[in-house]
């Protein structure tokens, strides 16, 4: 079993729902984002279009961050997820430099400031300390919501299909641009998308063999303009689950 993700760039509407969902799920400090959206303008014959590229840790099968980690804090799980054991991390930041995708962040003191400086911590921040304490002086990154997968699998849930065992960003994506599943299963939706839509990896030339794949990723080309339904949201059947998830988390604290 090897978890992977397919991102359909043409469907992405730049709603930043995935960024918000990840922030809520992992109680991320204000200055850190595990999921990032790169957006830039492309101009062609006085016609300007904005292209978006959603990036997160690629969970590389040949991950340089694992090779460089001096304490084996960064390790690959049996399911292919590249995870960090914060209790082992010494904060040398070698992995931050070595990651060719720049998807790692060192959590320094100045990054763990209050959401509202000079004011008391919000309820969300207080809950972070209890539910998802981030260790200052260590490195962080996306872990494909490994904790949700670990919680869901024993219950017989299928990551990618059952929402409770699926990464928060995938659940939230209104445009259904994100698909999650088992790369080892040829019948999984991700495997089919990779074959049928000729999915590509980001900078395959690095030899890192990422587990995140992209479809319709001709960056800068007109083919990357989102289809009508993605732009208008007409295909959206279920609204963002960010609010729902936030309520769920807050209700647990009572």
């Amino acid at each position, binding site marked *: 079993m090897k978890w992977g993700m397919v991102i359909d760039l043409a469907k992405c509407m730049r709603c930043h729902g995935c960024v918000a969902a990840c922030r809520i799920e992992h109680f991320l400090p204000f200055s850190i984002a595990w999921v990032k959206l790169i957006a*830039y303008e492309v101009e062609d014959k006085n016609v300007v279009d*904005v292209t978006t590229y959603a990036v997160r840790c690629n969970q590389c099968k040949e991950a340089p961050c694992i090779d460089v980690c*001096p304490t084996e804090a960064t390790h690959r799980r049996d399911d292919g997820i590249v995870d960090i054991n914060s209790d*082992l991390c010494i904060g040398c930041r070698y992995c931050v*430099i*070595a990651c*060719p995708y720049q998807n790692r962040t060192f959590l320094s003191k100045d990054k763990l400031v209050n959401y509202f400086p000079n004011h008391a911590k919000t309820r969300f921040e207080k809950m972070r300390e209890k539910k998802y304490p981030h260790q*200052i002086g260590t490195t962080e990154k996306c872990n494909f919501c490994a904790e949700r997968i670990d919680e869901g699998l024993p219950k017989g849930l299928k990551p990618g299909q059952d929402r409770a065992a699926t990464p928060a960003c995938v659940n939230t994506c209104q445009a259904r641009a994100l698909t999650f599943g088992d790369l080892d299963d040829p019948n999984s939706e991700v495997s089919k998308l990779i074959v049928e839509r000729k999915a590509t990896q980001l900078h395959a030339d690095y030899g890192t063999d990422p587990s995140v794949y992209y479809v319709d990723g001709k960056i*800068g080309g007109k083919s990357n303009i989102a289809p009508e339904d993605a732009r208008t949201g007409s295909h959206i059947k279920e609204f963002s689950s960010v609010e729902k998830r936030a309520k769920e988390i807050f209700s647990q604290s009572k």
Partner: protein
Amino acid sequence: MQHTRRQWMVQHEWMVKPMKQTEWIQGEGVLVWLSEVFSSLGTGLYLVSIFLNNWWGALIGYFIVVGIKLPLHFVYLGRPFRFWRALPPFTGAWRTSWIARGFFFTTLYAGFGLIQLITSYLILYPTGLDSSVVNTIFVVDITAKILAGITVVLTAIYCGFMMSFCKSVPFWNTGMLPIVIMNAGIADGLALMIGVGLYFGGVDVMMLEAVTRILLLVNILLIATYLLNATYGTDTAKLSAKELISGKNALPFWVGVAIAGIAIPLAVSLAPYFMGEVSHSVQIFAIVCHTAGAFALKYCILNVGYYKPLLYSEMRK
């Protein structure tokens, strides 16, 4: 269809163009720069000292590595008191990680170097010890010298390999970098050794200057090849090289590395051929310049470390 001419909600536009690495040069990163410089100076001086059998040089070199370089790197760590986790047997990371190897080599060097310094001191300043004890000390001294020599070389080269491993920074990602750093380190060590010789005596300064001359010439060749090589590489590596030669880092490169670090020490070492013996103050000035060059070289290499952008190549198509 409507088009916008403005970017909005752009959180991470930095990833679409080459961006500088900051972790190892800005803010706390200055400590990495300093620790790499002191590593180069200390290992170079120690290595030259044990070749020349100079105890004071070895002591100063050892102190620079163990007393300055190690604490600087230690302070830089986000969780310094977990440093032991990077050492065997607590980790097997040394099999792939150059920083783990570096910690391991430096720790071994700290042990072997200390033994060597103690035994060499006892040989140099005998205190009426029994002949059998003295013979044992001799054996221990030679063994410690060999082991300390090996580990100090490994300590000297790991910084270069640590950087050259990073595919993310094309300017560093070349086999030339460890050689440039190693050669510069030995030249820096020789320069400091001249200083030790001038102060403590017992060192053939003329011979050291002759060797320094050769190493400085090799240094010029290596740095020029390294930069030229970078311009043949990726656009990002070319950008780094251009920034050193004519960009924002041209001043530290030309004034610090080229003039202070190479031209002045080379001119001073060549001066006896044309002007007879040079005064001690001029020699000391050359050593100071050479050492400043060591700081400038590492600063320049670290400061022009640009990450290869994620989407750059696609955008250029």
